[in-house]
């Protein structure tokens, strides 16, 4: 019965084709370092899901941001768990993405024909760091405030356009309600949409080109 249903769907959707292409493709003999890409993807999904749940109670205004997070931590069932996963998952994601980049670099997996996989990977590394930067302000505590002050001062050292860059990042001369809401928008809409899109391209390239083998000693 169930196989009949599956066959009916498969005939119309081509599920086995997708399965064979995406999951059952040939790979060279590799090691555990090659799991870091999948780990990064799973962490991205985990951050997405826990992030969606956090927006249920989070309020992106300076008046309420801190209090709403206190409420998530102490007032809502398992709020501590969901925020905890999002908090530690963020750190872990930065670590896995950087480790993934280092593995690719040391195994020379970025070479022909996989240059574009590398380039999209660099975009993903930078957007992941952008997520870290924008997410850090959202609790609106002292650490957030001063970290964002410093991070938005840094582009200010660029010759000529520096002060302009700083005020664009802040949405004005100071860290304010505008800074918080634009960081929030970047954190939950712009950057995740961009990451999802670029992950799509990255994975298409991996499926199309396959992954490279571990270089031999004489290579």
């Amino acid at each position, binding site marked *: 019965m169930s196989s009949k249903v599956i066959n009916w769907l498969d005939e119309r959707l081509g599920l086995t084709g997708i399965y064979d292409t995406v999951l059952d493709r040939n790979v060279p003999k590799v090691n555990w370092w090659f799991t870091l890409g999948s780990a990064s993807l799973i962490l991205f999904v985990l951050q997405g899901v826990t992030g969606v749940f956090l927006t249920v*109670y989070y309020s992106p205004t300076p008046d309420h941001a801190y209090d709403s997070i206190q409420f998530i931590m102490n007032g809502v069932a398992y709020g501590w768990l969901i925020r905890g996963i999002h908090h530690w998952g963020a750190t872990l994601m930065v670590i896995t993405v950087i480790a993934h980049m280092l593995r690719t670099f040391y195994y020379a997996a970025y070479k022909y024909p996989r240059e574009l996989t590398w380039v999209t990977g660099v975009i993903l590394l930078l957007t992941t760091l952008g997520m870290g930067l924008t997410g850090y302000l959202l609790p609106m505590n002292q650490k957030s405030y001063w970290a964002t002050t410093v991070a938005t001062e840094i582009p200010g050292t660029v010759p000529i356009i520096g002060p302009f860059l700083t005020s664009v990042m802040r949405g004005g001369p100071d860290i304010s309600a505008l800074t918080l809401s634009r960081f929030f928008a970047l954190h939950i809409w712009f950057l995740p949409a961009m990451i999802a899109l670029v992950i799509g391209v990255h994975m298409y390239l991996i499926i199309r080109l396959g992954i490279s083998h571990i270089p031999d000693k004489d290579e």
Partner: protein
Amino acid sequence: MTKSPHISRREFVAIFVGALGTIMAVAVGLPAIGYLISPTVRTKKTDAWVSMGPLEGYPVGQPTLFTFTRARVNGWEKTVNSFGVYVWRETEDDVTTYSNWCTHLSCRVTWRDEEEIYVCPCHDGLFDISGKVVGGPPPRPLDQYENKVEDGVLFIRLEEA
């Protein structure tokens, strides 16, 4: 490959991964449901005796207004509500406490000494000294608070849903 009566490695892995996935889904799914509904089922009923000060401070025969505020916390937001209570000492010991909310549409009624009447400014609702409707649209008499006197201090019982 001949069919072995034992479970194959591939089958074992499939069952194991399926079981592990189910456990993980439940472990994550149940807290997620609790997270979404917990504030909605948490009842925030207040049932408090609020002090109105010494009974001696209220004149006999003349309804006197006492106002106070109560704060309510919803999530991360605090709302302060103000309440008005008319204390009427019909005799030394016979105390009745009325809410100053008009029973029509919850405007605040005012006691007028010279006319001996409660007047609602919104739609000319009128109540007599015992809270009975004597004019205008209010559907029922003024609401009363349960009260008690302890050591000479008057308390009303405030219930909020």
